[in-house]
């Protein structure tokens, strides 16, 4: 079987573009995504859903090429579709069907023999926590249950790549946490790659190890969150009181990079040879009180905002 090794790219985009009508929705996308769990971030209208839809074969690829799991998206749709699970953003189910009937149908359509589909439909519904409700019609499910049913139908055939479009939409905090826990469980098994589209940074940060930020149909940044986490271990947030405002300059002379600077708050990226003790020394010299000092990594929010600003500033 042509299963790509874990280091292989899950999705490769080369000059990828999609046009709906006369308008280019996605343009010149180039990326090689290898993460176990890939987050698609971007403001509304950035093209996240269009990208997912095109990778699923709903839209034509109008420029460049895209490959998923080693298959060409435009030419090998049928082979790909059997290996992909999709949980759409909007409510999606077949009215009047029970949960088990619905998930079984989706399993059979993905190629499972009827008996296997039935067995796996039971398993998928138990996995997402709908075991007791599986004989109820999906119309009668609550919003949270419908989201779980959508996840179950996406999983029933054991896909190698799972697209989750806003999976926590409309969920209360408890249900949202359960959904994220399920996604993490799937990710941690390592046999199914995940593409999660969301505008909730926290969800993406919790689940994903690689992030693509889209803005106005282009890739604003591709970020390996794992690498970022490792690289930002010497990152400090400081809250200062007093002094003549030259603390940042003194820190910069030590080799620190000042990322955010106002009178009372600083974000410093410390070089390896500089420690917290050195900062206290500067503070003593400058007559500054360090009221709070917190070591933290660059949050996804920072990465996202930086990407948005960079794109705004770009020609």
């Amino acid at each position: 079987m042509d299963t790509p090794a874990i280091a292989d790219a899950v999705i490769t985009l080369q000059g990828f573009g999609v046009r709906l009508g006369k308008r280019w929705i996605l343009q010149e996308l180039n990326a090689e995504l290898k993460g176990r769990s890939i987050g698609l971030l971007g403001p509304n209208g950035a093209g996240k859903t269009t990208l997912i839809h095109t990778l699923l074969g709903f839209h034509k690829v109008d420029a460049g090429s895209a490959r998923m799991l080693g298959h060409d998206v435009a030419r090998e749709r049928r082979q790909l579709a059997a290996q992909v699970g999709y949980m759409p953003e909007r409510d999606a189910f077949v009215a009047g069907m029970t949960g088990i009937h619905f998930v079984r149908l989706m399993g059979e359509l993905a190629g499972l023999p009827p008996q296997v589909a039935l067995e796996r439909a039971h398993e998928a519904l138990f996995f997402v926590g709908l075991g007791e409700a599986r004989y109820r019609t999906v119309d009668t499910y609550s919003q949270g249950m419908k989201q779980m049913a959508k996840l179950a139908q996406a999983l029933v055939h054991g896909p190698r790549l799972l697209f989750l479009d806003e999976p926590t939409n409309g969920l209360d905090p408890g249900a949202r946490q359960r959904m994220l826990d399920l996604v993490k469980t799937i990710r941690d098994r390592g046999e199914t790659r995940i593409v999660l589209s969301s505008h909730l940074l926290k969800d993406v940060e919790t689940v994903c190890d690689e992030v693509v930020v889209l803005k106005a149909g282009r890739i604003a940044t591709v970020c390996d969150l794992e690498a970022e986490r490792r690289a930002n271990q010497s990152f400090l947030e400081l809250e200062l009181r007093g002094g003549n405002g030259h603390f940042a300059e003194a820190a910069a002379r030590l080799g620190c990079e000042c990322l955010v600077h106002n009178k009372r708050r600083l974000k410093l990226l410390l070089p390896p040879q500089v420690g917290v003790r050195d900062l206290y020394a500067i503070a003593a010299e400058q007559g500054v009180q360090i009221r709070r000092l917190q070591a933290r990594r660059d949050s996804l929010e920072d990465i996202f905002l930086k990407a948005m600003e960079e794109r705004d500033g770009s020609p």
Partner: protein
Amino acid sequence: MAVHSHVFHPYGGPRTAPRRRWMVIARYALGEALSQKKTIALLVVSAFPLLGGAVVIYLHHNLEAMKILNLQVAQLLPIDAKFFFWILSAQCWPAFLLTASTGARVLVNDFRDNALPLYLSRPLTRVEYVLGKAAALATLTSLVTWVPSLLLIGLQASLAEGWFATHWWLVPAVFLGAWSAIALFALVCLAVAAVLRRRAVAEAAFVAMFFVVPMIARIIDQFLHARWWIRLFVPAIFESLWTPLFRLPQSNELSAGGALISLTVALVLAATILLRRVKAWEVVR
């Protein structure tokens, strides 16, 4: 109680043939249609004319029964091409009603709750999806049209020695005649349902398509001194198409060629509308 695994695990077992996935759609749609009491009732009612036909054939070959019922052979319908033409014409009505009552249901449920992205994200094309839905309707309507008609031909052939040798051509006539109706009913009904997306409205519109539209055309014809309405009147189209198949004299002013053109245009139009409407995504305005 069955014990099921509560963990997620990938699937590496055998898969069904990709080109036969439309049959899954057809099987589930048929199950949905047959779960309705209305459908079962229509199937039962549609059996009565066929039973009547079977009784007539039986009586033709049982003089004792004729004597008991005090009937003469001359009083019975002759078992010839016209007999099977009438049977098929009569059975088109239950086929029409079955399509009207189930056709919209099997499609509208998918549209109503946005199920199309789920279907079409699987190894299934739009054509296969439509084929599956149409196949479910065709199976239902076959049960009341060509299948029982062929059984009646079989009954007659088994009772009258040598009859089949001279009437074998009734088999393709019944088959082709029935399929012209089945295909038209199924595709037009699905197209109307795909456009209107509300079951009751789609059912009403489907019935109206076959009767109200020709009536309106007839009114317009009065002003234009034309005779176009007959090209839109489905019973006339079927009659014109079937008479050469059953080797009967032409009985209305619409030629078989004209009827074939009307039928083809309707089928192509319905299929085009369906394929345009059946898509995984919609632009939300």
